[in-house]
C-alpha cells in the first residue's frame, strides 16, 4: 500500500507508444502519478525513460496513447501546454544563462518582452526558496554557483512557474552525496506541500531512499511496478536489467592464454563519473569476458584504456606479455585490437562519409594507400566485401552512412573491426538500440570470433546479454572491479548486489 493511495491522480499516461524506425522506444507504457507522491522511473540507458518524458513534455509526439494532466487531456507536441498545465522539468543538463543572476534566470521566459515587470518576483522567489529549503541568493550570478546550487535554481524556476508536477531527469548524476541529501530533503518538503514528483534514475539506493513507488522500464516496456518499501535493491536491479534468460547462450570453452592484462589500473575521475580504481583484469584467448554494471560506473574509462584512447595514470597494461608504454588507437589496431565503440554515431562513424570511406577509416594508411595516395578502387571493393559478408542492408558503398539504420551501421563497424582478424575484441554496448534481428547477428559474430580464438571483452548494461554470452563475468561499480565469476555460478540477483556496490563493502571489510 502506497502512502498516497486514494489521493487525487494528477498525471496519467495511458498506453504511450513511440517508434523510431524499427526500434520501439516506448511500447504501450502507462503510468499514474498521485498528489504528494514521488514515483521513480527506473531503467537502463535506452530503456525509454527520456523518450517517455519528452512525450509528456511535448518534445515528441506519441504514435499512440494519451496524456492527461489534472484530468485534462494534454495536446500533443506542445511544450507550452505542458508548462501551462503545471508540469515542470529539470533537465540533466541545466538550461541557465551563466551571466545572469539567479532572479533574472528564474524570470527569463516568463514575461513578455514589453510587459511590465512582475512587481514582486523577488518576494515570490524568496518565499519559495524558504518554503522548499532551496537556499540560494537571488542576486548571485549563476556562473558563480556550484552545480548543486544551479540545480536549486532550476527547481525554483519550475516552482516559480507554479509547477505542480516536477520531473527530475537524473538529478543526482552531477551531485555530491551531501548535495543529493539536500535535494531529497527539498523533495520531501515539496511532496508535503502537495507537489508530485517523477524521479528518473538508475541509482538504486536513491530510488529506495526517496521514491514511494517505482516503475521499471526495459526495452521500452513497463516490466514492473512496485512500492519501494515492499522491495529491495537486488530485486530492483534484477528487474531493471532482466533476470530471465532468453537470448542465445554461448557454449562454454576451455580458456586459452592471457592476451591482454591490466594490473592495478587506475584512471582519474571525470567530475562525478568515477575512473578505474586498481582494476586488474585478464582477457584470455577463446573467452568472452562480460563486464556488467550500472552505467557510469567506470565502463567508459575501461573501454578508453583498451581502445587506445587513454593510458592508465597508475598500474600497467600488457599486450601479449609485453608491457605497453606507447599507446594510441593506431598502436592498438596494429597490435590486433578490434574495437566496437559505445557510440556508433559519434565515435564509430562519420555521418556524412559514405560506406567506403567509413569502411577504411581505420586501415586507410596501412591497407588502402601507398606513399600517401589512396587506392579508392581497393577501398570500394573492401566496403563491398563487408556489405556482403556482414549483411549490411544499403543501396551501395556510395551511400552516406547516416542514412543507414543503427543495426546496419553497427554491422559495418563490426565488419571493419573484424576485417583485420583481431585477437582482442572490445565490444562496448554492441547491441544497444538495435532491433532483434541485428542483435542476434552481432552477438553471433562475437561468439564466432571467440570460437576462432579471440579474447572478447563485452561491456553491457543488459544483464541478460552478459549472462547469455560471457564465459567469465566481472561487475564494475564505482570504478572497482569484482572478481571474475564463471558462467552459471551467479544468479542475476547476486550480480545485482555487486552492481549495487554492497558486496564490495563486504569484500573490503573481509
Amino acid at each position: 500500500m502506497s502512502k498516497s493511495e486514494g489521493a487525487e491522480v494528477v498525471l496519467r499516461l495511458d498506453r504511450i507508444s513511440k517508434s523510431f524506425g524499427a526500434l520501439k522506444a516506448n511500447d504501450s507504457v502507462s503510468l499514474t502519478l498521485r498528489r504528494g507522491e514521488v514515483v521513480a522511473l527506473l531503467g537502463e540507458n535506452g530503456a525509454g525513460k527520456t523518450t517517455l518524458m519528452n512525450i509528456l513534455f511535448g518534445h515528441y509526439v506519441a504514435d499512440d496513447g494519451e496524456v492527461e494532466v489534472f484530468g485534462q487531456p494534454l495536446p500533443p507536441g506542445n511544450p507550452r501546454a505542458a508548462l501551462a498545465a503545471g508540469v515542470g522539468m529539470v533537465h540533466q543538463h541545466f538550461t541557465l544563462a551563466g551571466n545572469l543572476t539567479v532572479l533574472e534566470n528564474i524570470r527569463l521566459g516568463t514575461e513578455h518582452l514589453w510587459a511590465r515587470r512582475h512587481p514582486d518576483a523577488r518576494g515570490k522567489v524568496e518565499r519559495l526558496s524558504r518554503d522548499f529549503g532551496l537556499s540560494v541568493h537571488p542576486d548571485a550570478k549563476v556562473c558563480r554557483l556550484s552545480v548543486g546550487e544551479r540545480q536549486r535554481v532550476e527547481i525554483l524556476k519550475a516552482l516559480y512557474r507554479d509547477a505542480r508536477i516536477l520531473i527530475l531527469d537524473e538529478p543526482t548524476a552531477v551531485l555530491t552525496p551531501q548535495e543529493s541529501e539536500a535535494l531529497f530533503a527539498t523533495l520531501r518538503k515539496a511532496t508535503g506541500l502537495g507537489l508530485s514528483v517523477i524521479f528518473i534514475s538508475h541509482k538504486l539506493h536513491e530510488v529506495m531512499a526517496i521514491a514511494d513507488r517505482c516503475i521499471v522500464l526495459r526495452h521500452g516496456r513497463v516490466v514492473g511496478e512496485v512500492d519501494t518499501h515492499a522491495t529491495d535493491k537486488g530485486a530492483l536491479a534484477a528487474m531493471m536489467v532482466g533476470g530471465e534468460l532468453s537470448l542465445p547462450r554461448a557454449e562454454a570453452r576451455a580458456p586459452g592464454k592471457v592476451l591482454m592484462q591490466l594490473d592495478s589500473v587506475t584512471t582519474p575521475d571525470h567530475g562525478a563519473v568515477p575512473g578505474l580504481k586498481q582494476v586488474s583484469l585478464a582477457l584470455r584467448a577463446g573467452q568472452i569476458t562480460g563486464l556488467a554494471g550500472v552505467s557510469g560506473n567506470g565502463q567508459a574509462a575501461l573501454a578508453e584504456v583498451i581502445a587506445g584512447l587513454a593510458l592508465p595514470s597508475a598500474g600497467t597494461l600488457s599486450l601479449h606479455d609485453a608491457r605497453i608504454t606507447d599507446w594510441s588507437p593506431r598502436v592498438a589496431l596494429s597490435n590486433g585490437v578490434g574495437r566496437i565503440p559505445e557510440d556508433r554515431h559519434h565515435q564509430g562513424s562519420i555521418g556524412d562519409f559514405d560506406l567506403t570511406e567509413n569502411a577504411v577509416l581505420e586501415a586507410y594508411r596501412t591497407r588502402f594507400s601507398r606513399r600517401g595516395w589512396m587506392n579508392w578502387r581497393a577501398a570500394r571493393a573492401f566496403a563491398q566485401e563487408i556489405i556482403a559478408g556482414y549483411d549490411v542492408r544499403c543501396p551501395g558503398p556510395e551511400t552516406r552512412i547516416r542514412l543507414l539504420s543503427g543495426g546496419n551501421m553497427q554491422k559495418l563497424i563490426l565488419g571493419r573491426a573484424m576485417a583485420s582478424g583481431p585477437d582482442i575484441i572490445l565490444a562496448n554496448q554492441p547491441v544497444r538500440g538495435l532491433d532483434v534481428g541485428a542483435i542476434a547477428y552481432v552477438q553471433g559474430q562475437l561468439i564466432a570470433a571467440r570460437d576462432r580464438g579471440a579474447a572478447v571483452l563485452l561491456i553491457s548494461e543488459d544483464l541478460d546479454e552478459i549472462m547469455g554470452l560471457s564465459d567469465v563475468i566481472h561487475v564494475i561499480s564505482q570504478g572497482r572491479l569484482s572478481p571474475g565469476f564463471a558462467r552459471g555460478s551467479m544468479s542475476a540477483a547476486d550480480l545485482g548486489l555487486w552492481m549495487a556496490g554492497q558486496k564490495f563493502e563486504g569484500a573490503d571489510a573481509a
Partner: protein
Amino acid sequence: MRLEPIANPTAARRLGLPVLAIAATMLIAMVLALIAGANPFAVLGQIARGALGSKLAILETLNRATPLIFTGLAVAVAFRAKLWNIGAEAQLYAGAILTVVLGTGALGAPLVLPLSALAAMLAGAALLLGPVLLKTRLGVDEVVTTLLLNFIMLLFVSYLLEGPMKDPLGMGWPKSPALIPEARLPRIVDGLRLHWGFALAILAAIVVWVIQTRTALGFEIRAVGQNPEAARFAGMPVNVVLIKTALLSGGLAALAGWSQVAGLKGHLSLDLSPGFGYTGIIVAMLALLHPLGVVVTAIFVAGIFVGSDAMSRAAGVPTYIADMLMATALLCMVLAILLTKFRVVRG
C-alpha cells in the same frame, strides 16, 4: 520556430538553394541601386559590361581573380578541416615581404622566381603555425588569433615600408624598391596584362582538389573536419592533421601575396591587398569549399569588383555597392547552406 535537421537533402535542395541565394543577392543589389538613385537594371548591366564587356575588362577581371583564387583556396582547405583561418590577409603580406626580400637583388636569375615562391609559402605557413599550435596545445581559439595577426602584420609592413625596406628612390612614398626583372612573373601573352600567376592559381586549385580527393592526407583532413572524435578513435593523428592543414592553407594564402608582387605590382606597398584575405572567405563559402568551385567564384567576385568600378564612373553609384553585394552574397549563401541541412518548422 525551430530548425529540424534534414537527413537526406534532395539534389534540388542542394543545388537549387545556392542558385536561389545568388538570385536573392542580385535582387537586393537592385534595391540598393534604386536607393542610390539609379536604374537598377542599368546598374547591373554596367557591372556586367565593366567586368566582361571587352578583352581589357575580362583580363582585368582575371587579374583581380588571381589573388582571390589563392586566398579562397587557403580558406577552403582550412575550413574543410574546421580550422577557422581568418588570417589569409596576414599570410598574404608575409608572402609578399619574402618575395620582395629575395626579389630585389638578393637572388639572381634563373632561380629567383621558384625560390621566392617557395620562401613566400614557408613564411605564410609559419605565420599560421603559431595559431594552430596554440589551438592544439592550449585550446586557444584560432579565429581570434588569426584575425588579430592581420592587424599586427599590417602594422609590421607599415614599419618595414617606413624603415628598413623603404625605397630610397621612392620620393618619400612608403613603398619598397622594385623587383629585378628576373623576379617578375612574365605575361602569358605578350602585350596583354594577364600574368602567369593566374595559370598557377588554377594549377593550385587542381592540386588542392587532387590532395583532397586522392590522398590519405586529404581523407584525414575531411575526416577531422567532419567528426574529430571519430577520426581520433579510428587512429588519425588529429593534431598533426590540423598542423599539416595549417601549413597548406598558410602557404596558399602567401602565394596570393607573391603573385601580386611578382606578377602585377613589382613592389610592396600598403595597398597591395584591398582585403583579398577577407574576400577569400566569401569566395570559399560561395564555392561551398570546393577547390575547383573556388576558381569560378573568385572570377565571379572579381568581376563584381571590377564591374562596380566601371559602373560607378558611369552611373554615379558609389563603388561601395560592390562590398555590400559581397556581404549580401555571403549572408545569402550561409543561409542557403543552413537551409540545405535544416528545415524551418513552426512551434
